[in-house]
């Protein structure tokens, strides 16, 4: 289920939230005598609804999530039980990490791996996962894909989240979660399961035990959710149509202006889609009493690529820093190791976004830009007027998106050439019409990518409290009505993270 669907918005969300609000955090069930069973009612509800939410999109692979959750939970308990036995603790960690990485390898990367092997060695090996799928389908028609491995939704998010638990537990940064319901509710927490943010266990450990659900939190969550819904449905979906159109054209015959309009459309689409999704997740978390970390901070205003990645998909960057970069030695072991570590982290970051060479190159592209900034370019950037350094960073991101969303490296190269006029013309009637009929949405997207709206709301929040307070419900109503009118006629409402 996706947040931007009528089913979620009008049925799942209100039903779950109302039940959630009505029940207490914990229910004490007397078992006779002195004994009392404490049922963590809200966590249980989160667990059940999370499974339902996930199974709505992945009715079969929900068992993989359950499987990974059980392994990680058990690994945690074992680490705790054998607290003074470093060997057992290490083994538990290795099992957990290997299992999670293994799931990614099997379900996300196996096709890519076998495809690469086959094309390098000229072999024709069938991915064994497909053979397993076929065998399972023979037993009962589960409708598993028999030609390619279908990536289970959100697998890249929940495996990373679970790993944050076992790794941090191993590093003794957090306490063990003894309750299976508690741990599972963390993994299945529906706001963040399909598209992040990558909430580390540490971030919500306290809230899993005890959290406040009140009108203030709910209304704050509603405002944040509505903001995200508007970004996704009104901005991302509408500007995304342009990119879909341009992408369908032959890059050898489009004008430079068309190519730019197309990739700019995608630049805005991916930002509003992804950050909108994160806002919705954060908002839903707030309604449930959780405080998720911020995932986007106006990345297109960054003045260097390094800064861009501190403001884009922040929770992913944090994850790789905490669990890959720093354990590898970070930047404390000399220049050569630092460079190696950066390239590893960025190669992996690229690969995390999808199993294809485009994504690896896309990640390394950023790794190299960041290295160049480290060795001096960054210092120079700081001295440049901020308009120029922002433009540089924005353009770096735009070219990155070409790599990101054209399916092959050849396609990316073709497209980049088109942006420089290889299609023969700089400007033609197609681009003129595209610009004229979509000028408004581009302008809105440009403004909405800056922090103007955030500053404006901060100003009203502080200086004009009453106006602000009553604007919120009015804005929420407008967003809800507008988005509904777009969702009812959902001719274009893509889910962009199916490859993550």
């Amino acid at each position, binding site marked *: *289920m996706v947040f931007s*669907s*009528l*089913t979620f*918005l*009008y*049925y799942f*969300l*209100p039903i779950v*939230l*109302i039940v959630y609000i009505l029940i207490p955090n914990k229910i004490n069930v007397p078992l006779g005598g002195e004994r009392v069973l404490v049922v963590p009612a809200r966590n249980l509800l989160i667990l059940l609804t999370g499974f339902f939410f996930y199974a*709505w*999109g992945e*009715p*079969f692979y929900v068992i993989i999530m359950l499987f990974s959750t059980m392994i990680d939970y058990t690994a945690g308990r074992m680490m705790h039980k054998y607290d003074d036995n470093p060997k057992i603790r290490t083994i538990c960690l290795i099992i957990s990490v290997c299992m999670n990485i293994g799931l990614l390898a099997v379900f996300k990367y196996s096709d890519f791996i076998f495809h690469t092997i086959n094309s390098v060695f000229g072999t024709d090996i069938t991915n064994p996962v497909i053979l397993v799928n076929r065998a399972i389908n023979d037993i*009962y*028609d*589960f*409708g598993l894909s028999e030609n390619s491995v279908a990536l289970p939704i959100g697998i890249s998010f929940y495996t990373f989240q679970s790993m944050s638990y076992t790794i941090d537990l191993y590093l003794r940064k957090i306490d063990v979660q003894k309750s299976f319901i508690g741990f599972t509710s963390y993994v299945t927490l529906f706001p963040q399961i399909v598209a992040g943010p990558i909430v580390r266990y540490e971030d919500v450990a306290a809230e899993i035990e005890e959290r406040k659900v009140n*009108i*203030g939190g*709910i*209304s*704050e969550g*509603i*405002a944040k959710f*509505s903001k995200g819904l508007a970004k996704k449905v009104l901005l991302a979906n509408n500007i995304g149509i342009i990119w879909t159109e341009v992408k369908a054209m032959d890059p050898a015959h489009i004008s430079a202006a068309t190519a730019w309009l197309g990739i700019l459309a995608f630049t805005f689409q991916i930002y509003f889609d992804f950050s909108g999704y994160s806002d919705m997740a954060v908002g839903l978390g707030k309604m449930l009493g959780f405080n998720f970390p911020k995932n986007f901070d106006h990345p297109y205003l960054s003045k260097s690529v390094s800064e861009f990645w501190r403001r884009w998909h922040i929770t992913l960057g944090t994850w790789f820093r905490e669990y890959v970069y720093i354990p590898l030695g970070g930047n404390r072991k000399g220049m050569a190791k630092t460079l190696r570590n950066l390239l590893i982290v960025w190669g992996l970051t690229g690969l995390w976004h999808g199993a294809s060479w485009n994504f690896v190159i896309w990640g390394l592209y950023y790794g190299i830009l960041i290295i160049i900034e480290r060795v001096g370019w960054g210092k120079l950037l700081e001295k440049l007027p901020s308009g120029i350094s922002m433009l540089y960073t924005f353009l770096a991101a735009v070219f990155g998106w070409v790599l990101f969303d054209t399916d092959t490296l050849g396609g990316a190269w073709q497209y980049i050439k088109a942006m420089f006029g290889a299609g023969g013309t700089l400007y033609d*009637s*197609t681009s*003129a*019409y595209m610009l*004229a*009929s979509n000028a*408004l949405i581009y302008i809105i997207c440009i403004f909405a990518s800056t922090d103007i709206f955030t500053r404006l709301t901060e100003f009203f929040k502080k200086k004009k409290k009453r106006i602000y*307070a*009553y604007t*919120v*419900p009015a804005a*929420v*109503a407008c967003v*809800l*009505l*507008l988005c*509904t*009118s*777009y*969702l*009812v*006629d*959902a*001719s274009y409402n893509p889910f962009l993270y199916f490859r993550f």
Partner: protein
Amino acid sequence: MKYKKRKRVNIPNLITCIVFFGILIFMAVMTIALPKKDFLEMENDYAEKFPELSAKAVFNRSYMNKMESYISDHFAGRISWIKGRTVLETSLGKKERNGIYILDDRLVEKISEPDMTSVDKAIAAINKFADGLDIPVFAMIVPTSAEIYSDELPENAPNADQKKFIEYVYRNLGRSVNTIDVYQTMMSNRDDYIYYRTDHHWTTKGAYLAYSAAGKKMGYVPVPIDLFDIEHAGRDFIGTFYSKTLYDGVERDTIDFYHNSEGEKATEVSITESFGEEPEVFDSMYFREYLGVKDKYSSFLGTNKPIVTIKADNDGGKLLVVKDSYAHCFAPFLTEHYSEITLVDLRYINISLSKVIDIDEYDQVLILYNASSFMTDTDIRKLGY
């Protein structure tokens, strides 16, 4: 007991919650409570039925997909929601929606550049077909409203040039095909009501003008327009372009029937739904039951069917028409001059034409398509088999 300090509830926060959940719950309940329609007239399609739960349907996700379609198809006030969106977008200056351009007083189709290799196959098939026949073959490709009113389109709006396209087709049709040019006819009458404002068809008036223009080549003297009694049979017709946009800013259409004041010539209409079955026989070309539903254009000879034969009371020859739906309001005029007119719709014929039609019985063949459907057609090539 400890005294618990009661925090004052923040009113705006409370309003936010009430507004948000109020809208959600109200719409959710209304959607469940309102009576369900089986048929979506705007989409011309059946509405999704409430899905049946089964393990198989759950595992292959069809249950979930159907449930989502069900909710969307039956969402309370569905049409009004979509209209609201159109009103918003057009008021923000958007002139295009779902492949339809919104002009000042009409809707027209956005026609993309045709795939010429596919068009060439159709042309080759017609040539092959005509070369194998001893009887005259005529071809009439009718421009659509997007061409005739192309000067009213938004600036630079992509729109395939139908004039060039028709010229290309006519140039490449061989000598055994007589082409009938109606482009000029339509263009010079563009101020008249020759195309529906909300539908992709031409009006009966448009068809009449083409019928008059074709007379010279096909060898008949067209009946003058003042000999017809014009019946405004269907008012408030809203066609396919309307369904795609739900834009209320253009005037609705009227379906006109042209009756010869000296009496109708058509005596019998027989429609073959599927081969091997006896055709169903009707006594009129006008299917008035369609005037009461949304799809009013189908009052001309019904919806598209593989074979429709019209018998008429005169001593003219027999005509075979290979056609799309533009022929439906055109055919009644032909009954003035032909004793039998057979309309074949190749989209619905999947066996060789010679198996269903004895071509030797006919005196003339007319190939009648509008330019838009000719551009995308993949069935005309069946003529070559």
